[in-house]
């Protein structure tokens, strides 16, 4: 809410600096968005009257003027402008002045004649036609009204003002007005609030002979108030009013429209003026729009309406979007002579809904949406009529139209002093509360421990004890709140099981050199196409956002690999040679789409690697480590992810479920992400990890007897999985086998084509005695024999 300080001062004394005012208002709950001191733009520029003009002795095109600037002797100013004349009132920049464009004016000589200042044009003062009539004309700005010489030009232009932009919270619609802010200022500064009393006289007649009003929907329009003004003389509104409107960001139009806008800003109650000529049938009907009905609003736009929208119609068609914008055909024109003033209350959610649906937002709709005061409807009308009367621009017809379905009763709230204090943790005396609440226009009396509060109609937000506590507190001052250690039962705090598991996953990965990343939960709907995921894959069942920021962020992700590839791609494009990343986040798994119940938000883990050191097995090592952290020893099976290398991908399967799928990214996919290298990704079901039980470690006695080692070098088919060989070794090497380790795989010139050599180290140990060669000989022979059945033979 932009507030002109000069305007504010009309209704409340402000005996403090702007800084102090802002600070006090901040303490009371009104944040200050900005303070703009208009007077800073220009200094030492005054109104001057040209008394005499002479030709410059040394220059044909220059004039030497003697100018009365209101102080002592007239000053001599040389000008080159041709439009000045004796008796003209003009802006004079005196010695040492500063102009809005940054120019500094000093006295000097022009061709040998002293000049003590400069006559200014509209451009030099950075003025537009709307700031001052004639400002954009060539030459010196000729002032139209009669100002005494010496008047500060800032006063002429309305620049002797400070504009404070207060941020008003949603619970205080009453402060969307100068009067509302003035009331708060009067409370925080403890000065008098001077609400202007309406003052006007009517000129007879009867409103009912001009117009009739019918409200068909009191739900959406609880009160509709109207007056008629005749003999209207349309013209510009007075300077003072224009200055205030401009200061608050509104454009002056004509006296009638300006009065409605002035009242809107002053009281917070939007008003509308109709040209009575254009109200067909002399009837106003407040009704819901018919389906498909059309209206052209003041801004020239045509809207198609629907029945949940409220319109102000005449006998034939809608002429206003209720509370939002007037219609083009009933607007005030230069030759308007009879007007109907509307001041009404429209239901806030209805106005909000219509304004949003049609995409029309105005000062008026903004106020209705936040909520207006049903009693303020009448006061605003009185203010408008007072202005008509004061400016003498029309005759006020006798009689009012006040359609309402009964006005709400005064609300009385009883709360206890101790109840308020118990919420705050303070001991504020009841008398102090009474004093504060009364200053806030909440008429309050104290009887024993009980406060009886009469809630004014503009404070709909006050419903109970908590609200009274807030009102008291914000004026009493929050600095009185002193931190105390919490009382109450001792409770134990802890992380959830899922969070503790998450910590274990993260620690495990960080220790292996992985950095955690964070990416958005929504991704492009093309992501799955890019990854080549099949149409019938469950990951295709993704939740869409109805109003996404863009296609890029339009579906809730069902996998993390896409985001991981994106992040790696950014790093790769920035010439970062190697990365090891992981992300522990959620995927969104709905039963069906569009969703009818909350989806499963499934914890998921992705891993991504690239760099010289990385290959399929560094990735597998990391995956194994994470699974081992949760005591999961899976089987590895070939998998068929389209975005992974067909020969370098695997699924880690345990209990029939794939816990991880990982591998080298398919060259077609990595090309789409701009990679020119090998990239590795894994996607892991973190939910399964978190559900796994890890038994407590139990001590096993350390070995007391030496071990026997046997190396086994075998030749087998290239396609033979080593896991199968290991399985045979484990099955047949007897009770003393302690460990089997694959330590070499060779394929090349030393070996037959289509074969590979694999070498294992077997360690045997007994917990009871020292093994001798003959204790392991039978086992080794059995293993070799079994393996030969699988096509493996000893390497010679």
């Amino acid at each position, binding site marked *: 809410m932009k507030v002109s300080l000069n305007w504010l001062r009309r209704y409340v004394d402000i005996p403090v600096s702007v800084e102090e005012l802002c600070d006090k208002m901040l303490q009371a709950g009104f*944040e200050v968005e900005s303070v703009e001191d208009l007077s800073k733009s220009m200094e030492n520029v005054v109104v001057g009257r040209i008394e005499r003009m002479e030709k410059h002795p040394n220059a044909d095109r220059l004039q030497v003027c003697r100018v009365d600037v209101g102080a002592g002797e007239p000053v001599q100013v040389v000008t080159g402008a041709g439009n000045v004349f004796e008796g003209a009132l003009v802006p004079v920049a005196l010695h040492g002045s500063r102009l809005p464009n940054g120019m500094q004016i000093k006295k000097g000589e022009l061709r040998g004649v002293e000049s003590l200042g400069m006559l200014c044009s509209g451009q030099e003062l950075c003025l537009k036609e709307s700031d001052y009539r004639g400002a954009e004309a060539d030459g010196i700005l000729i002032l139209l009204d009669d100002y005494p010489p010496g008047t500060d030009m800032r006063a002429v232009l309305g620049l002797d003002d400070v504009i404070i932009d207060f941020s008003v919270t949603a619970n205080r619609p009453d402060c969307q007005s100068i009067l509302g802010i003035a009331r708060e200022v009067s409370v925080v500064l403890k000065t008098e609030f001077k609400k202007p009393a309406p003052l006007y006289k009517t000129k007879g007649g009867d409103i009912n002979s001009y117009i009739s009003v019918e409200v068909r929907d009191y739900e959406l329009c609880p009160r509709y108030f109207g007056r008629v003004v005749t003999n209207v003389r349309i013209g510009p509104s007075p300077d003072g009013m224009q200055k205030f409107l401009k200061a608050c960001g509104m454009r002056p139009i004509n006296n009638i429209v300006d009065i409605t806008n002035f009242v809107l800003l002053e009281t917070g109650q939007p008003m509308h003026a109709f040209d009575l000529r254009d109200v067909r049938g002399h009837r106003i009907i407040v009704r819901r729009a018919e389906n498909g009905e059309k209206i052209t609003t003041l801004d020239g736009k045509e809207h198609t309406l629907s029945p949940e929208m409220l319109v102000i119609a005449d006998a034939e068609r809608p002429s206003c979007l209720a509370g939002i914008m007037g219609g083009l055909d009933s607007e005030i024109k230069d030759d308007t002579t009879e007007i109907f003033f509307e001041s009404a209350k429209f239901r806030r959610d209805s106005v909000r809904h219509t304004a949003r649906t049609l995409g029309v937002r105005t000062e008026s709709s903004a106020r209705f949406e936040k909520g207006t005061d049903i009693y303020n409807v009448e006061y605003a009308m009185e203010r408008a009529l007072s202005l008509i009367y004061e400016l003498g621009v029309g005759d006020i017809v006798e009689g009012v139209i006040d359609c309402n379905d009964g006005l709400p009763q005064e609300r009385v709230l009883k709360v206890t002093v101790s109840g308020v204090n118990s919420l705050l943790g303070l001991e504020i005396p009841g008398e102090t509360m009474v004093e504060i609440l009364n200053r806030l226009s909440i008429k309050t009396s104290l009887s024993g421990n009980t406060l009886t509060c009469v809630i004014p109609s503009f404070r709909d937000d006050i419903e109970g004890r908590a609200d009274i506590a807030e009102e008291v507190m914000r004026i009493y001052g929050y600095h009185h709140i002193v931190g105390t250690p919490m009382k109450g039962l001792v409770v134990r705090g802890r992380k959830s099981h*899922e969070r503790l598991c998450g910590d274990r996953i993260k620690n495990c990965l960080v220790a292996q050199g992985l950095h955690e990343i964070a990416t958005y939960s929504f991704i492009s709907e093309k992501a799955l196409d890019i990854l080549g995921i099949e149409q019938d894959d469950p990951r295709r069942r993704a939740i869409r956002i109805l109003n996404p*920021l863009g296609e890029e962020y339009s579906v809730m992700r069902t996998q993390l690999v896409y985001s991981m590839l994106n992040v790696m791609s950014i790093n790769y494009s920035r010439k970062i040679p190697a990365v090891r990343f992981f992300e522990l986040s959620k995927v969104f798994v709905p039963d069906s789409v569009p969703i009818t119940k909350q989806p499963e938000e499934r914890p998921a883990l992705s891993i991504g690697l690239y760099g010289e050191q990385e290959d399929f097995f560094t990735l597998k090592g990391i995956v194994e480590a994470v699974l081992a952290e949760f005591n999961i020893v899976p089987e590895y099976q070939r998998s068929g992810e389209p975005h992974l290398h067909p020969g370098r991908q695997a699924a880690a399967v345990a209990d029939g479920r794939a816990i991880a799928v990982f591998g080298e990214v398919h060259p077609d996919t990595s090309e789409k992400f701009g990679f020119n290298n090998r990239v590795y990704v894994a996607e892991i079901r973190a939910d399964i990890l978190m559900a796994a039980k890890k038994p407590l470690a139990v001590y096993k006695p350390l070995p007391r007897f030496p071990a026997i080692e046997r190396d086994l070098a075998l030749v087998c088919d290239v396609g033979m999985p080593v896991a199968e060989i290991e399985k045979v070794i484990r099955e047949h090497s007897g009770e003393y086998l302690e460990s089997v380790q694959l330590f070499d795989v060779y394929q090349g010139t030393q070996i037959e084509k289509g074969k590979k050599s694999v070498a294992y180290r077997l360690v045997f140990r007994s917990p009871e005695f020292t093994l001798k060669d003959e204790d392991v000989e039978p086992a080794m022979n059995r293993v070799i024999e079994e393996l030969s059945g699988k096509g493996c033979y000893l390497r010679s």
Partner: protein
Amino acid sequence: MKEKLEQLRAQALDSLKGIKDKKGLDELRIKIMGKKGQLTEILRGMGALPAEERPKIGQLVNRIRQELEERFGEVEAEIEERLKKERLAFETVDITMPGKKRRTGGLHPLSSVLEVLIDIFVSMGFDVVDGPEVETDYYNFEALNVPKDHPARDTQDTFYLTDKFLLRTQTSSAQIRVMENRKPPIRIISPGRVYRADEVDATHSPVFHQVEGLVVDRGITMCDLKGVLEQFAREIYGPETKVRFRPSFFPFTEPSVEVDVSCGECGGQGCRVCKDAGWIEILGAGMVHPNVLAGCGIDPEIYSGFAFGIGLDRLTTTRHKISDIRLLFENDLRFLEQFS
């Protein structure tokens, strides 16, 4: 014979003085005490001695042998000691050369700052509870005292999934689920992701993170709220930090406050960091609105509570002086490494 022995001893001791290395020492040892050495040679001549002389000479031989053995041992030890010193000197390294590191990774700064927060609140007895990110309109708005078409919805541009379901705009939705499922005393924080349809810029992200706090018990007051937040602020911003409440508005708390901390950069004098205010706004808080308590089946006449919501991303960027929130989601390794 005796003279011969004495002479041999003297010669041996003399030769020993010139020995510089192990090889020379071994040669000398063999020359004198080996099987064919000089001492053995002399001993062979023992047979020619009269019988009564033999024990004397035998003793002498043994004494000399023992003495020489000792001396040889000493010299050997000296040589070894010298060799060791030489080896150690030779092995001296340039200690200014870089250490051999095994690269570890690191947590994302949002995670590490969250861990700090969780530690602070868990130590004060707060449970950590997670809530769903896909929420119903009811939990995200209505139960929080924000009915349909309420102006408070304006400040939170919401991503909708269907008419009924949306991406939560605030972790406050978790409050309701906790109050529905637990009986007071309640003391929880609920960290998590939230979503608002804000265009991306240096200070806005459509995906961000909050940490909601909620306490409900008998006799909870605003002073308790301040006490908890002061504790939090001192741990995060330093022991000298002051906390200020300013009245504000949130639909689900009443009274509501914005909470500022004294600017740690300038100590409250005003600087670029606090935009000359001397204070930095860190969170919103308030006493749980009686409508919200009642809606969750908690009698507001018996119980009271407070709630607060911390913006984790802003806390992270201010704590680490990160100039642009987008950096958090870009995940440039060089950025991430700065926080590991």
